[in-house]
């Protein structure tokens, strides 16, 4: 098992009110597969994404990634975990506006012990010709491809994508999905995609459905289809 979660819970407190964002959630993800997390707003998808990425802490339970327990790590070790294991792709790209496309990808590569070649990754994402441009000069689709390049260049074992197509048009979305599939195939990276778009789950190896902080369904997808055939 690449990722193993045991009884994860996360409670948000606002005054006297308590909200259980995750309620004793347990699951296992294999290495090199694509998973989609789906569910309505408030189901706990983003909370799980944050805890898996080492951005937030669980209130209870344990998570093991590649055999290491991340739930007991201090901030310093969590930063090292994010550096060595995780690549993030956000809905709104979160590129650094003060850096060019190349520098954005480089900013990630320079943290890695074993980075991929930046030019190769930019070519793979088809944004090499834009490498000297700043993010605000790119379309949404191009920005998201740069964001994926930035995530993948570290050569991480795990890529976490939070609504990666949420801000994109249909064509750009399909391109992004194909790229994620290519990365998974080429580098054996485990990819977890949070999405509202049920169609995307058709390209995943398995789908986990959440509702009110609980897993209501975990289903393998034996009829997995290539990303280019996904339509909605």
């Amino acid at each position, binding site marked *: 098992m690449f990722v193993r979660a045991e009884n994860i819970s996360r409670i948000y407190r606002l005054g006297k009110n308590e909200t259980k964002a995750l309620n004793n959630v347990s699951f296992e993800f294999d290495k090199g597969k694509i998973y989609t997390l789906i569910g309505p707003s408030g189901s706990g998808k983003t909370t799980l994404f*944050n805890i898996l990425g080492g951005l937030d802490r669980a209130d209870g339970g344990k998570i093991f990634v590649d055999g290491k327990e991340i739930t007991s790590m201090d901030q310093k070790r969590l930063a090292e975990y994010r550096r060595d294991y995780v690549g*993030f792709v956000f809905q709104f790209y979160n590129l650094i506006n003060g850096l060019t496309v190349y520098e954005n990808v480089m900013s990630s590569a320079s943290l890695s012990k074993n980075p991929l070649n930046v030019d190769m990754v930019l070519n793979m994402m088809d944004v090499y010709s834009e490498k000297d441009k700043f993010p605000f000069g790119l379309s949404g689709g191009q920005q998201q491809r740069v964001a994926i390049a930035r995530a993948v260049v570290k050569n991480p074992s795990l890529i976490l994508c939070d609504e990666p197509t949420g801000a994109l048009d249909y064509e750009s979305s399909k391109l992004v999905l194909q790229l994620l599939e290519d990365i998974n195939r080429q580098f054996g990276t485990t990819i977890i995609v949070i999405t509202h778009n049920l169609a995307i789950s058709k390209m995943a190896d398995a789908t986990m459905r959440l509702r009110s902080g609980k897993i209501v369904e975990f289903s393998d997808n034996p009829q997995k289809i290539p990303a280019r055939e996904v339509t909605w």
Partner: protein
Amino acid sequence: MVIKRIPLRTMKRNFFQFLSIIMLVAIASMTYTLFAISMEDIDHNYKMFKDDYIQEDGYFITSGNIDETILKNKFGIDLEQRLYFESQQDGIILRVFSISERINKVYVSEGKMPGAGEVLVDRGFFQAQKFSINDEISVYGKKFKISGIGYLPDYIYAIKNDQDLLPNPEHFGVVMMLNSDAQKLFPAFPVNYYSYKGKVDNIDEFKSFINSNWGLLKFVEKAQNPRIIYTEMKVENAKDLTLPLSLFIIIVSSFILFIVMRRIINAMHAEIGTLYSMGYKQRDVFKVFMRFPLYIWLFGSFTGILLGYFAAQPFAEYYRSFFSLPKLANIFPWEHILIALFMPAIFIFLSGYLALKNFFKLTIIQMLHGVDEIKFGKLPAIKLFDKFQFKTRIMLKYGSRHIARELILIIGIIFSTILMMYGMTAKDSVISGIERAYNENFRYNYIYILNSISSHPEIKLGNYAEPYNLLTFDIQDAKTSIMIYGIKDNSDMIKLYDEKGKEISVSDKIVISKPFANKLGVKDGDDIKIKNKFTGEEYIIKVHKVANLPVGNNGYMELQSFNKIFGYKQNEYVGIFSQQKIDISMDLLFESYTKSELLTTIKSSAQDISKTIGVMAFIAALLALLIVNVLSSLTLNENKKNIGILKMLGYKENDIFKMVLGFNYISFLTGFVAGIPLSKFAMDSLMSSATKDIDFSMSLDLTLNSVLSTFIILIAVFLISRFSVRSKIAKVMPVEILREQMD
């Protein structure tokens, strides 16, 4: 680390905002460097000059020729006689001194020491008269060749009369010639002039001894000699101002930097959160973002130091031109350069650190998703605002939401008001105030000071002239002295008025000038303990009234009461005020001067003062402009979303501008109104500290003219600045905001 490029790129993108902060830092560093280096230069050269050329510790004038050996032995001092006389021709008065050998030695900056038939003249006079070396000058009817420019350590501030405020090189010059030439020119000197060097333990005994043996006409210690002490006062005054002035600008710029940095960091919250998510540690992000203050400090301080350093030389020369002070050595004051460099660093890095520190308290999730919601929760819910119309309410809420920056705006306007008002008032007080005093209070045209106190039967006084008597006293428990005049009752020459403009008549009590009363802290009916400077006799005298005179350590009494109290016979006097010229024999006359000379001096100096005021007004206006500009731009940038929404709702740009930035008017007016009494307080404190230990008092009163002029300039700057940021509202497109909202 590639991310270290972020700050410089961000600064380029927000160029004008950062340029304004850099300019503020540069102004602060420049102000410090400029004043500190130039004043250090003047101070250093002044000290060298007074030590190397043996500045006197005092001088005195006697009617009899003294026995130098007796005085030297009895009081353990060095003493040197100087020949001294005045020559008047074509409206120019030349004060001629013989060149001394031990005390007040002459320094020649250009040309050479004079030989027989040659003279040196002071620099101010040399330049004002456009002389060249080897030109001829007529002294007492005889032609002399100018061999060079000379400086005397006791004439650093080359004023003609002790009471003068400013030198007048157009009409007054100091001439130095060989003792032998002076003797040939003027074989019988009416008075004897001595300079002494050395500490006298009992100055009263010293004066009394001279007076009883050789008739003391005048005794001036160095600390009471305006020709020496004005220089020290002006340099000390400028030095005192340097640090607070620069510090203030630095603190204001640091506050603004803090606000700008917070805004930049807030705007980059998702980017910083992303850096964390990529695996960057707090230390890495901190190092990158501390580059903002680093660049601001480097660009601002170095530019300021360079500008200040290169301007210091001409500024010192310009300042030196007010004095007759030579430049003996070049200095490079490292300590001031280092202060100018590191003083801003402390505040700038501190504000950068504090801005970051607050942000680092957030979790990565908060960074990634922003903290707007948290901030919104802190919006002030002041019920009072709800009583106003919607637009006014929004305006008040915007103001109270950004209370810190409104406070900085207020402080900035207060500072600019003080700076500008100080300049305006200095001009008004020095020029108009004194001019007014000489027209309203001092109605004589000539003053004659005789060389003895007696009834002077040989002088016939017409109804255009009045006798007066005069004595100088030390004030007990204060390092100052007072010149008390005995004047005619209902004098036509000296008119004294109280604060309300009611005429004050003189009596057996004393009437003193307002600035002097302020300096001593006395009022009507108070007693002052005084001690005769020459005899050491002590008196307690009551203050009858405080007269509204703008300047002077003067007191006035009725002449016959004066004579009675101080032991003179009835009708004795030492001087004459006259509206017409009187021919008085040279052997009776000690000195004379005319009111028109003084007024000419003041007028000719007005231009120089105007230049200085121009610089002060420019700095004040620039500061106000930068502060208003940066803060207004910030507020508009931060509220783009709201501006877009208000536009969508159909509000006009003008209304939106008033709602978002309308509070600035309140802050501006608050700053200006608060600046008026603070200006008065600052000016009084400055004047009181500058004149604390010297025999000089002057009141700097705010005039309606200076208040109005300051207001007009500042409001113009304020409106220009607002106009320049207003275009930002026009640039906000509601459709972009909608798109951002969707995101």
